[in-house]
């Protein structure tokens, strides 16, 4: 039988050769469950930041702002001139000047609700929505400089890039966390397997005496640890997924942290954690067992 088939099918009589008692049972199940629980959150973090980066990137890439900073008596004329330029610029889908109320709303978080817009030298903002491949920002700036001297084009590049980079780094951290969790799980299961092999040296001696091969002896331990890790990870992943499911909705509380979770088919990802934990346990236990059996020969 191949390694995986023998793990899944097993041999009840061979499995009985290794006593079931011992702290390594609890250690393996607990560490697998804890690591799977953490892995679900790391996975949710990675996927959420991926969505966030995509969203920020897409939203900010499709809009730009034109700011008209001119003496009060020229603002209206320059705004109209800028709108005319924009209407004839390829890649601009629409352009509109924000109303006084909209500008007050933008400033309200900093200046409070009763801002006297009319008495302040506030620039006029024009919101530009791009279409297709967008517009040529350099060319547009050149035209505006010639026709609307008070216009400053902000295509969001300056502050979109660090936001997307931050989201990308968060996503990378999530994946690094997943790798570290896998490594820590492998280390813990290896330690538990080595402890079990040491505690069962008499069992190994008897099995060798009666003609057991290394593969048979290792198999008895590998199967047990793999199944324990799989079961523990199943429990941990289910608990983690439940925890994510019951997090507050993003649109209720708002903010990034409340958007942590899975969407659509991403809910299937936690299902991959128990088999992955089983694979980690299979490889780490088999490596530890073969090495220990070689040392004991």
């Amino acid at each position, binding site marked *: 039988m191949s390694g995986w088939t023998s793990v899944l099918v097993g*041999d009840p*009589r*061979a499995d*009985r*050769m290794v*006593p079931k*008692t011992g702290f390594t049972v609890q250690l393996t199940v607990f560490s697998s469950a804890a690591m799977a629980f953490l892995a679900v959150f790391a996975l949710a973090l990675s996927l959420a930041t991926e969505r966030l980066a995509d969203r920020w990137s897409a939203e900010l890439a499709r809009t730009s702002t034109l700011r008209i900073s001119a003496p009060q008596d020229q603002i209206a004329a320059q705004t109209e001139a800028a709108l005319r330029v924009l209407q004839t610029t390829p890649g601009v889908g629409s352009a509109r000047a924000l109303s006084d109320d909209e500008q007050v709303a933008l400033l309200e978080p900093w200046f409070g609700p009763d801002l006297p817009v009319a008495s302040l030298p506030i620039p006029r903002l024009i919101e530009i929505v791009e279409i297709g491949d967008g517009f040529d920002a350099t060319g547009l700036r050149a035209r505006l400089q010639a026709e609307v001297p008070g216009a400053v084009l902000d295509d969001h590049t300056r502050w979109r890039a660090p936001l997307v980079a931050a989201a990308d780094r968060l996503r990378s951290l999530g994946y690094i966390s997943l790798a570290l969790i896998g490594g820590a799980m492998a280390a813990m299961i290896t330690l538990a397997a080595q402890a079990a092999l040491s505690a069962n040296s*008499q*069992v190994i*001696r*008897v*099995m*060798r*005496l*009666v*003609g*057991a*091969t*290394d*593969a*048979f002896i290792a198999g008895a331990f590998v199967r047990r640890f793999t199944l324990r890790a799989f079961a523990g990870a199943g429990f941990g992943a289910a608990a983690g997924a439940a925890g994510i499911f019951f997090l507050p909705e993003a649109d209720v509380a708002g903010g990034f942290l409340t958007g942590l979770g899975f969407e659509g088919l991403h809910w299937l990802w936690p299902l991959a954690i128990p088999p992955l934990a089983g694979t980690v346990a299979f490889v780490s236990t088999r490596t530890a067992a073969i090495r220990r*059996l*070689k040392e004991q*020969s």
Partner: protein
Amino acid sequence: MIELERVAYTYGGAELFADLSMTLAPGSFHFLTGPSGAGKTTLLKLCYGELIATSGMVRIFGQNTREMDRDQIALARRRIGVVHQDCQFLDHLPMAENVALPLTVSGRQEEADEYLADLLAWVGLSGQASQLPPQLSGGERQRAALARAVIMSPEVVIADEPTGNIDWEMSQRLLTLLVELNKMGKAVLIATHDLNLIRAAKTQVAARVLRLRGGQLQAAGSEL
């Protein structure tokens, strides 16, 4: 079957024996005797590949043990039944499962159902099949170890002080079982201090007695 040719074994810097030769032929019956610490158990372990000779050659079924890997040794052990002085059982398994271990590790578990009942009856342990090894008496454990040693119908049976922990009556019973095996064509090698056992055996079978002393293996004289 098992040949030792000019074998030496050194342990912890001290030479336990040197230039030792011996052959176990099919159907032969050997006793190995000698003082404690002479190296009887070591010699037996060389015979079933648990130890590798420091020099010289040990051949098990024609294969040089020094050239065999662990799996080849394991496969050879399936053809050699070993009875240890301390029996070496898995204490968490019932006696019947312990007896069937060689079949289990060989992937022939289904044969256990076929042979086990007869084998346990042969060694007089039918009523103790479900008991755990610690629940058995010394004699019962020795007979269970013998049953485990022969369940694969091995070509050689090696026993290390099989009567060390049991009374005379039980020793006789165990000897009878070993003689029966020899009459079936199995080679038997028994390490023992028990001269009475050797004398009793010589009345039933043509046993050769080897004495290990001072690192030398000699045929024992007529005093036995």
